[in-house]
Structure formats: structure tokens, C-alpha cells
């Protein structure tokens, strides 16, 4: 009989389909795992609602659970329980090392344009905060594009949500 701990270990080996250096467990999208009578129930929270990686992650989790000899039951939770604050410290460091600036912490109010336009975001390559907003949107919904004036490198900034 598979245990919850074994499921967590197996899920931690699944890479984020769009940012492979980080796993879906690092990303914090697995909210809960429970095992009952050979069925593994996973509560899964999408990052962005329109993220095309959602189905890929769900199917990969189901496949891994089947490989453990259990029946998967992956429930997609459509509420506000996922936040970029759920990305683990290890996940944040893996993001940074791969050239993605980790998200700023979530604040009480919504992020403001003036904050994004300020020079308080750190370049993941050289560490300078002399960076400017190039585009609120980026290659996927979860990222913005910034430019580092110090090392003259564009980089992707994880949005805070």
C-alpha cells in the first residue's frame, strides 16, 4: 500500500512543464495528498487559470500515481489558495539560478503599476536592482519582462499573485 510520503516524493520529481528546473512541489501547486483504500486523492491548485500547463501537470501526476500502483484522483481547486508565496525557498533559488527572478512577496493590496515601474526588482544574473520594467506581460501569463541596466541583460520576472 502506497503512503502519502511516497506520493509526495514521486510528485516532487515532476518538473514544471514550462520551467523545468523547478518541480511542481517546489511550485507549491500540490495543496494536499491523502490515501484511502488504494486511491490517492490530490488537491491541485492552478497557478494562472488560463495556464496551458494545467492539464499537463494533472495528467503527469495521475501517471506517477499509477506507477506507484494506486488509483489517482486529482482534484483541481479553483480558488485563491495558490499564491506565489507558496513557492518553496528551494524553488525560488532554482528559479533564480535558471534566470527567472523569483516573485516579490504578496502584499495586502493588489500590486501597483508604480511598484512595477520602480527600481526595486533584483536582476537574477548580477544582483543589481538597477532594473526597469520592459513589459507587464511575458512569454507566459505568470511572468513579466524586465531589463537590467547594470549587466544589460533582459530577464523574466515572476509576477506576484
Amino acid at each position: 500500500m502506497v503512503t502519502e510520503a511516497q506520493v509526495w516524493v514521486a510528485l516532487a520529481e515532476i518538473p514544471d512543464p514550462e520551467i523545468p528546473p523547478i518541480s511542481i512541489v517546489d511550485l507549491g501547486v500540490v495543496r494536499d495528498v491523502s490515501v484511502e483504500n488504494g486511491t490517492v486523492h490530490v488537491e491541485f491548485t492552478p497557478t494562472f487559470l488560463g495556464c496551458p500547463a494545467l492539464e499537463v501537470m494533472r495528467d503527469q501526476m495521475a501517471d506517477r500515481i499509477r506507477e506507484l500502483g494506486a488509483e489517482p484522483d486529482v482534484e483541481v481547486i479553483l480558488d485563491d489558495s495558490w499564491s506565489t508565496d507558496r513557492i518553496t525557498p528551494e524553488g525560488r533559488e532554482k528559479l533564480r539560478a535558471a534566470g527567472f527572478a523569483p516573485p516579490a512577496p504578496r502584499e495586502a493590496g493588489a500590486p501597483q503599476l508604480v511598484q512595477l515601474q520602480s527600481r526595486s526588482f533584483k536582476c537574477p544574473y548580477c544582483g543589481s536592482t538597477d532594473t526597469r520594467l520592459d513589459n507587464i506581460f511575458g512569454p507566459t501569463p505568470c511572468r513579466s519582462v524586465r531589463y537590467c541596466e547594470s549587466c544589460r541583460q533582459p530577464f523574466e520576472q515572476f509576477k506576484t499573485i
Partner: protein
Amino acid sequence: MNAQELLAIADDELILGWRNSEWTGIAPFLEEDVAFSSIAQNEIGHARAIYQIVAAELGTTADELAFDRKPAEYRCSQFVELRVVPDWARTIARQVLYEQADEKRIKALMESEDEQVAGLAAKIDREEAYHRMHAQMWDERLQDEPRYVEALEEMRPLVDRRDGHLPEFEQLWEEMTEVRRSVPGATW
């Protein structure tokens, strides 16, 4: 909030998402190509999530709600149906007015007694914050541009007009449902 009211919101998001995707590849510059494509993706994601809630209540599926209804059955406003490409001033005017109106109803949904609806609205609101910043940035940039000011005046009365559909909605519906209609009964 009843199913028909939620359906109106989902239809608005789906149709505006479709309209915004019409800028993909042809926006005035690369950043806006990326922005409008991303905004479209988010809006269609919001539509899907709301359709899922409504579908569970009505005993149908999100895909059936999105693609299998007749044009007359959609509850979106005429405002989101307007085809504004390639007019940038009207595109931004619609986006600014839409985000203002949408923010009010999303905040109201966050107060819903239905926990599932309130939870989803809170998530949508966090994503919409970035659409609002985008709209604000353009509003600040274009506020003294006569074509933009004119477009705001022209469009403001249309924001919540739901008495029938515009002639151009028929063509959008044809395009949007074409693939699904081509293989009836297929599983996607």
C-alpha cells in the same frame, strides 16, 4: 448570483478574449503583441473556470457552454463583440472601460455567499490586477490623444448593452466554433 448572471460574465470574458487575440502577430509593437495575447489567454481561462461552475449547476460541460450554443443564446454585451482591430485607440478605450466595469463585478462576486464563486473571484481578481495596470499605463499615455478621448465617449454607453447581438458577432461565432462543429461528438 444565479447561473445566467455568471454565464454573462463568462461570455464577456470568452468573447473579449477572442477579440483581444485578434492582435496576436499584428500589434503595433512586440510588447503589445505579447500583452494582448497574454490577456486573451487569461480571459479565456477565466471564462473556462466560470463555465465549469455553471456547467455543474446546469448538468452540462464548459465546452458545451462555450461552443455549442446558438449565437442568440450567448449573454455577452455588444461592447465585447465590437471588432476594433486595427484601431489602437478604440482597442485601448474598450480595454480601459472593460477593466473598470469588470473590477466592480469581480469585487462583488468576491463577497458572494457561494464559497466556490467567491474563491474563484478572488483568484480572478489577482490576475486581473495586471490587466488593470496595463490599461492604466495606456490610459495615462493616451489621455490627451483626441482619437482616444473620442473612442472613450463613443464606447462608454455600450459597456453593458445586452439587448441582442451586433452583426459582427455572427462571424466571430462561426470562426470560434468552427473546429468543434467540424467533428461533432469528438472528445478534445
